């Protein structure tokens, strides 16, 4: 190829590459909340619920909103995971969501720090709503990061203890355990061996036992995850060591990791009717409030008891607290209809009747203080335990972090190594894991 053509080709290739790189670097589009929410408009709402009764409940919630706001139409998309939501928030476009909801509070830090969702503080202020007096303490905390309230709570989850009352009576246990010592003793009493396995296991303590995650255990120890400078407190706050030791003690005393894992592999899945608590294969279950409805529907051959999770022996006075999390909702930063989107968020999260009706429909904990006290709230008397846990000021949550739930996954991964015996030096392991958390956070900044 002659010299001129080669130069031209190089220039063309270089400019094409630059143009392509430039388009790749554009990121989010900036969009102010300058739309007119009183004009006829359609917004997209993506949520994660998928069960038919849940989808029906969401649709009913949206119908209520559309009745109250006849000019705003909502296009609802169900069964969305955080991965899909995150992608769509980045790509934008007409079909991208204006309002999203997510099942996990773990990603709040990432949603807020990245600017994926708009800060709702100005919207709350404009509407004259004070989030601190509207939402329970823990829910108010987990919906913001570094003063940026990019989400609002859309119903909550409270974790407690489900127990098989019939098995308790057979084992001569009168009341649900209030401290972890009592719990460990009861779990042993409730365990019935069968060959080299179990006929009934008192409790499945493994971190793969679905809701028996590190953060759910640790919630009862009121840990401080980060100091003021944002450094991990995993190795310095004794709550973590106590939490890990308790779980390991349960694993060892109930048969050891391998035996428990083999038993776990034989059990039905978390969301099916053959969940081991429903079938009587485990007598106690750490779980969220939704389990009650699922367990009742499964028609088990025993009486279901519900209680708060036990607390450490030296915190016996705090019995009644629990770990709190929940669904969150927010407005896309790329949305050009943010005022209309805010109207939907405001309705779903602060309209007492809407919150109560939605809670009644899907058996989640209401996420406003007014709804928690509403006489319209219909529930099984046992459900009251979760309402009390949600309202308990000692109840805890895990804080938002710039890299989302990475620190929780890191702690959980360490938990797998510790419970299986792969790591035996707990203190050294905690130090190493804390350093890993700090490195991951530095990488995300």
């Amino acid at each position, binding site marked *: *190829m*002659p010299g001129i*053509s080669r130069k031209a*080709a190089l220039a063309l*290739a270089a400019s*094409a*590459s630059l143009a*392509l*790189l430039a388009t*790749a*670097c554009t*990121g*989010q589009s900036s969009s102010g909340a300058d739309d007119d929410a009183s004009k006829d408009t359609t917004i997209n709402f993506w949520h*994660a619920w*998928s069960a038919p009764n849940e989808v029906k409940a969401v649709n009913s919630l949206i119908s209520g909103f559309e009745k109250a706001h006849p000019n705003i139409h909502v296009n609802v998309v169900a*069964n*969305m*995971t*955080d*991965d899909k939501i*995150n*992608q769509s928030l*980045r790509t934008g476009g007409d079909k991208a969501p204006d309002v999203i909801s*997510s*099942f*996990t509070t*773990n990603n709040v830090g990432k949603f807020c720090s*990245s*600017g*994926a969702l708009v800060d709702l503080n100005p919207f709350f202020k404009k509407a004259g709503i004070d989030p601190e007096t509207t939402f329970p303490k823990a829910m108010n905390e987990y919906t913001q990061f570094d003063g940026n309230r990019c989400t609002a709570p859309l119903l909550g989850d409270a974790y407690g203890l489900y127990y098989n009352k019939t098995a308790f009576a057979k084992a001569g246990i009168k009341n649900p355990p209030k401290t972890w010592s009592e719990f460990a003793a009861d779990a042993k009493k409730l365990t019935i061996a069968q060959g080299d396995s179990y006929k009934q296991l008192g409790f499945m303590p493994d971190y*793969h*036992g*679905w809701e028996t*995650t590190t953060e759910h255990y640790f919630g009862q120890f009121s840990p401080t995850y980060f100091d003021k400078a944002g450094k991990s407190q995993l190795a310095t706050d004794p709550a973590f060591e106590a939490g890990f030791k308790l779980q390991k003690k349960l694993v060892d005393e109930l048969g050891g990791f391998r035996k428990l*894992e*083999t*038993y*776990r*592999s*034989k*059990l039905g*899945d*978390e*969301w099916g009717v053959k969940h081991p608590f429903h079938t009587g294969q485990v007598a106690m279950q750490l779980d969220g409030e939704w389990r009650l409805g699922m367990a009742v529907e499964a028609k088990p051959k025993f009486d279901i008891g519900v209680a708060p999770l036990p607390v450490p022996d030296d915190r016996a006075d705090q019995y009644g607290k629990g770990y709190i999390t929940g669904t969150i909702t927010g407005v896309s*930063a790329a949305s050009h209809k943010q005022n209309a989107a805010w109207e939907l968020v405001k309705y779903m999260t602060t309209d007492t009747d809407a919150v109560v009706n939605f809670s009644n429909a899907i058996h989640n904990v209401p996420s406003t203080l007014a709804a928690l006290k509403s006489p319209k709230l219909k529930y099984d008397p046992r459900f009251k335990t979760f309402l009390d846990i949600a309202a308990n000021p000692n109840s805890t949550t895990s804080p938002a972090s710039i*890299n*989302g*739930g990475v620190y*929780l*996954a890191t702690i*959980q*991964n360490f938990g*797998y*190594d510790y419970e299986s015996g*792969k790591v035996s030096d707990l203190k050294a392991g905690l130090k190493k894991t804390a350093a*890993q958390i700090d*490195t*991951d956070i530095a*990488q*995300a900044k």
Partner: protein
Amino acid sequence: MSTVTLASKRRKQALRTAAFMSPWLIGFAVFFAYPLISTVYFSFMHYDGFKPPTWSGTKNWTYVFEHYPFFWPALRNTLWLVLVMVTLRVLFGLGVGLLITKIKTGTGVFRTLFYLPYLAPPVAATMAFAFLLNPGTGPVNSILEKVGIPAPGWFNDPTWSKPALTLLALWGIGDLMVIFMAALLDVPQEQYEAAELDGASAWQRFRYVTLPNISPIVMFAVVTGVIQTMQYYTQPLIAGKVASGVIQGAGTQFEPGYPEKSTLTLPQLVYNLGFQRFDYGSACVVALVLFALSMVFTAFLMRRRGGLNLAGD
């Protein structure tokens, strides 16, 4: 002919050549050169998909190689799978192909039986295998226990999880079987006849007639197998999730590589870093490692192919 006319003719010829090559050039630029250049570019940037990328030097590289706890286990697993799974797939595919070409009756039935599993979608196939190999309730372990063989933990045991994935890969051998069958049926019959006349045994006929004839196909199977295995994502992810019990729940924490990082592969890290942590820079580093490994393997195999052709000649 004057110099100007000659230059003009050459320019026209060059333009014509470029026009004919343009479909490939555009495809190369858009689907290879641009992604590669931008991957290198972003591997030195801090970028989360929202805020504009900022220069971070070698921070992402240091993070991946020194601080990201999943990288080395994933690399080891990927190399294990490339060496063991690819070797066994090629051997098994060739073995099945040979067997079916030798069968006199019911060839169609056997071909169908071996090819059908290949058509199963990877997610469904993996879930079926997770069910079959469930250490507690799976029929495979029930049978093994009945005949007195110690039952492995399969996808729940870090020692057995990769062999379990290999079994799954061997089950879906249909694609290789078809390719090998076509190659085996293409071997000139007269060469076998000549070898027989020379008194060659079955092994000698395979070694000195079959193998040299099908060596390009063997090499094709190895190279494509290596590339496929480098991109191995769906099966280990699904197997890990199903075995760990985390199969549903939109808010469930992602737990790569269950059990004990044994099913972790490099493509899973690209997804985890890029589309879950939104650390595009580090994801690009892992993608480049994958690219470099693929190039090294391919270059090595291509050199070996030269040797094989020589041996064939």
